[in-house]
Every structure is written in C-alpha cells, then in structure tokens.
C-alpha cells in the first residue's frame, strides 16, 4: 500500500488520490485553499457520515463552510472536518489484494445466528 500525497474532490467521490494514479486527465489546480473532508452526524444518526468535501483556508473556516454547504436542509447536529491530506486512503491500484479476498467468505457474515428480537442496532 502506498500513501498518496495529493487528493482531489472533483467528481463527488470524496478524497481521491491524484498522485501515482493513472487517470488520463491532468489534475486541475482549482484553488490554493486546502481540501477538507466533511463528516456530519444527523439528528438521530448513530455516527458521523462522510457527506463531501470543500476548500477552506483553515480548520475553523472549514467548519463554517461545512455548516453552510452541508447542513442547509436541517440535517446535522454535529460536524467533523479533517484535511484530506491527513487521510491515509487505500489506492484503486490495490483494489484486488485489499478487498477481493473477502468476496467468497460467506461464513464471515452473521447469517448463521438467530438474532433475539429485542436486541437493538442490528
């Protein structure tokens, strides 16, 4: 696994590495502000969910931009922002060694247990 240095949010898939990934497209320099990834916890959501990315000059501004961009429709009660450059992401090149081996391990799914009716969050 390689740790990619550059990331982009173009395309709406969240942080995607731009270095060492053959894409056929020259990366665009849209802004000198660094990229942040945004995680929002909904009103009754159990955990923070990645909702998208934005550009901001610093963490404080990123938090305010996140409020304006991602909670306009009354979605959130809590926001996390993290610089995309601080995220260590898996690379598309390593898709097969990373994820394919779990594709045929059906016994790893909890389908062989009977679940009591009154157990929450399952």
């Amino acid at each position, binding site marked *: 696994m390689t740790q990619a240095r550059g990331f982009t949010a173009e395309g709406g898939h969240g942080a995607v590495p731009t270095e060492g990934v053959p894409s056929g497209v020259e990366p665009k320099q849209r*802004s000198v*502000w660094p990229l942040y990834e945004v995680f*929002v916890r*909904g*009103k*009754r*959501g*159990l955990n923070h*969910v990645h*909702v998208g990315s*934005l*550009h*901001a*000059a610093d963490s*404080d*501004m990123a938090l*305010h*931009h996140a409020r*304006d*961009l991602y*909670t*306009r*429709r*009354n*979605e959130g009660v809590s926001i996390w922002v993290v610089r995309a450059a601080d995220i260590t992401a898996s690379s598309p090149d390593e898709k097969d060694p990373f994820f394919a081996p779990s594709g045929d391990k059906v016994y790893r799914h909890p389908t062989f247990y009977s679940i009591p009716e*009154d157990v*929450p*969050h*399952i």
Partner: protein
Amino acid sequence: MTTDHDSAYDSLADEHGGDARWAFGTGFDDPLSGVDTAVPDGVEPADLAAYSLMLADDALVMSQRLTQWCTNAPELEEEVALANIGLDLLGQARLLLARAGAADPTLPGRLAPDLPHEDALAYFRGPAEFRNVTLAEGDNGDFARSVARLLIFSTWRLALLDRLTSSRDAVLAAVAAKGVKEVTYHRDYAARWVVRLGDGTALSHERMSAGLNATWPYVEELFVSSDVEQRLAAADVGVDLAGLRAEFDDVIAQVLPLAGLVHPPPENTVESAGRSGRHTEALVTLLAEMQGLARAHPEATW
C-alpha cells in the same frame, strides 16, 4: 424504547417521510404556527403595517444584494454562504411583508389585488414606497465592502430583533425569535471575514479598511427612529432605534481592534432618508432587476 430502536435506520427513514436518504433534513417548523395574528390594542393597523414594511424592506433589499454575489463570489464556498444568508433574510422579509398585508390590506389590495400580499408588496411597489435603510441598498462593491456592510447591518439588526422578541405583537415577536438565531450567525460570519481580511495581507487590510470607510457614512441613519417607529416603540410593539446604539458600538469596538482596523470617524451628514421613502439611484436599479419578471408576467410560476 424497544420498538423505537429495533432498527436505528428504519426510524431515521420514518422520520424523513420514508426517504432512506436520511441525510436530507426534515422537521422544519412553521414559525407562525399557533401565533395570535390580531393587531394589539392601542395600535393603528396602518402603523403596524408601515412598521412591518420597514423591517421587511431592510431584509428584502439586503437579501437581493447578497443574491447578486451568486456566480460572482471569490470562492464557491463563500457563494453558498452568502446565498444562505440572503435566503435567511428573504424568509424574514416574507413573514414581515405578510404581516404588513394582514395588518392593513389596503396597500397590497391597491397594488395587485389578485396576488398574495407578500408578492404584491415585494414586486409592485415603486422605490419611493420602500422603507429600507440606505445602508441596505448600496452597491456591493468588492467582497471586503460587502462583508463590512454585512457586519454593520447584522450587528444592528440582531440588536433590533433581540429587543423585538418581547413585542406586544405576537407575530413580530415570533419573527424576531426566529431571526435572532439566523442573524447571530450572519454577524459571526461577517465578523470573521472582517478580522481575516483586516488582519491579513497588506492588500487585504487596505481593501477591508476602504470597505469599512465607504460603508460607515450609512451608520448614523440606523439609529434615527421615524415617527412610526417612535409611536410603536412607545406602545411596546416596536423598538426604539436610538436604544440600540450602545450595543452596536460595543460589538464594533470588539471586532475592529482584532482586525487591526481604525474606527472610522463619526459621520453626522446622513439624515434618515430610507424610512421616509427617499432612496438612492442604487435602489432603482436593484428593484428593476428584482421586480422585472414579476411585473412582465404577473401570473408566472416556477
């Protein structure tokens, strides 16, 4: 507890009308639900309508100016932020225009009898019938000038709405209670940018300072009550503008040193003009843009 949490995600989807994409918001409140819309004792309906128009027009005209940043803001993120603030103010304007029409239907009835009061008042009054303060109508200028104006406007309006929450008119009190939360954020947004630009580079400081100085001559007017405002303040329905000055000065005195900006000298040259319908050329072009479509196609929907 037990049935509610069989599946956390099911209950999220239920709460959101069955839409599994629960990140969409819901649970919006109607700020006027259950509010008594009767005109309070001892207040002329025409006075209440005129006062509601003043507060509505401040928000409506300011909203239109903020909207003009769409596709022009320096960053996409700021564009959305400014549009959000404009939409907040538009929401306040709609409720206040509707209040004006409900208190005294003669004006909207004369302008456009077939339209809802808020539309008739927003789209079919001429510039001389608008009652907004001059501060709101001036051109945007550059980004620094716009955030200087927004800081002054929202500091003033927050002080006003804060006091209006105890109005004897239940509708104005409810609109103010909703607006306080919104305008608190607007003031925070503007103050952050004033500090960031004022305390930034030599160029950003210069432009922030120029923006503040260009906006400052419109401050005095904010604290001069018209006859209508004085009467309604005396009846505990409106707010005495002079009483907002101390809070305004206090906030500005906190922000400017952080931004490294010099307090502009007091200007006493601007008399209260907007409240009596005397406006600058800037409002004429603003309204032409805002009202053109509705006037050309009064029945249009979109």
